[in-house]
């Protein structure tokens, strides 16, 4: 899967499921500080990754990721 496809799927999840503002989904946006990702959202995001990209993030991994670009990279590296 290309990074562009990863970005599209992640952004669709974040707008449709987590209901984040689409305009806020820039690569440099910080998951917690800019998008308001909560600890429950992080668990939800882990489940989304498992279902969509086929690997199970390690416990607490999402909470250590800073920006959206880092999340794309993390998924690309592990899938």
């Amino acid at each position: 899967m290309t990074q562009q496809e990863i970005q599209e799927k992640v952004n669709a999840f974040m707008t449709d499921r987590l209901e984040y503002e689409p305009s806020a989904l820039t690569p440099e946006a910080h998951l917690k500080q800019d998008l308001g990702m909560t600890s429950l959202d992080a668990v939800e995001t882990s489940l989304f990754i498992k279902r969509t990209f086929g690997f199970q993030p390690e416990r607490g991994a999402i909470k250590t990721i800073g920006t959206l670009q880092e999340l794309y990279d993390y998924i690309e590296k592990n899938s």
Partner: protein
Amino acid sequence: MRRVVVTGMGIWSCLGQDLQTVTESLKQGHSGIIFDPKRIEYGLQSGLVGSVPRPDLKPLLPRKFRATMSEDSEYAYMAARQAFEQAGISDEYLCQNEVGIIFGNDGNTHQMDVYETMKAEHNTFMLGPNAQFQSETSSVVMNLNAIFHLRGINLCIGAACASGSHAIGYAKLLINHGAQDLIIAGGSIEMNMHNTIGVDALNALSCRNDAPQSASRPFDTDRDGFVVSGGAAALVLEEYEHAVARGATILAELCGYGFSSNGIEEISMPSADAEYIAMKRALDDAGLQPSDIDYVNAHATSTIAGDIEEAKALTRLFSRKSKVESQKPYISSTKSMTGHENWMAGASEAVYSILMMQNNFVAPNINLENVIDEAKELNIVRETIYMPINTVLSNSSGMGGTNSALVFKKI
């Protein structure tokens, strides 16, 4: 002792999803029951159910609240929202004042979905973050506390089909004794099929699948069980002086709460003696005599044994030979229209009763063609009666042996 009044009500039921619609349904003797063939396909004997829509919460609540809500929390939110609005309780008030919550709720079948996922996946990771909050019995009070910023008593009461009534009664006690000034109390129950399987297995449900609107027949000789229904009902209960100081409109006084437990070995059997004790205790708490009661909202669910035992208890309480006919209260079971709203019933029937008081009518016990022998001395209402109602006794009873009764009066 501090007096307790009702200053707001909300309802989400098969008779309507606002107070005005429900009032009209009660006046018209409208049945909210439908036949759902999916229930038969699922394996139930009874395909009968109250027609209760799921609310669309997306325009009303951010996702962070919606995500953790169980089905019954959704109904409870809609009822609580209405109740707070009627009581003039704003978000600002809730943020600045301590308000408690007590809801009756005796089970949540979201746990079944959790089991299904675990059986298939063998991995808790696949449950996601919301399963825990959605599957607790206390899901309703946990979710509503977060949404409404409630910081007082936070309690879920599980007492089978008397849960909603006990919740209101317990709120009354806390306000009576000065522990709280304002509590939102009520009852709620899911409408999904899982929630029905146990009582269907007990052969406790009506199987008049070809005649849904006449299936719930409290006190009728041809009754064959109850019809499941649900949703939520909520009441804002408030200390009298607190309500007056706030300038709130007082809808009724909650002046009596009574309770009892059956204490018999047959767990599924109702008890006339225990129901009598609960109702008498509620009247004593209210400082009223049976002859002071204008209307009784009976628990009567349309089951074979339950209606008989309640009729015996009501006869003992109200139909003494020395009593003149005009002193007997009017009686109806609104479950003839709603079906049995289970954990919610004690709360919804409090709302229905107060609506009758406010609008000067007694709702009918529909589908009553041939009254059972045990109820022949009772004044059961078959057609809507228009008259002032000043005092109401609302009776509730739960399978397993718990009983609760509430008394309301005009103020």
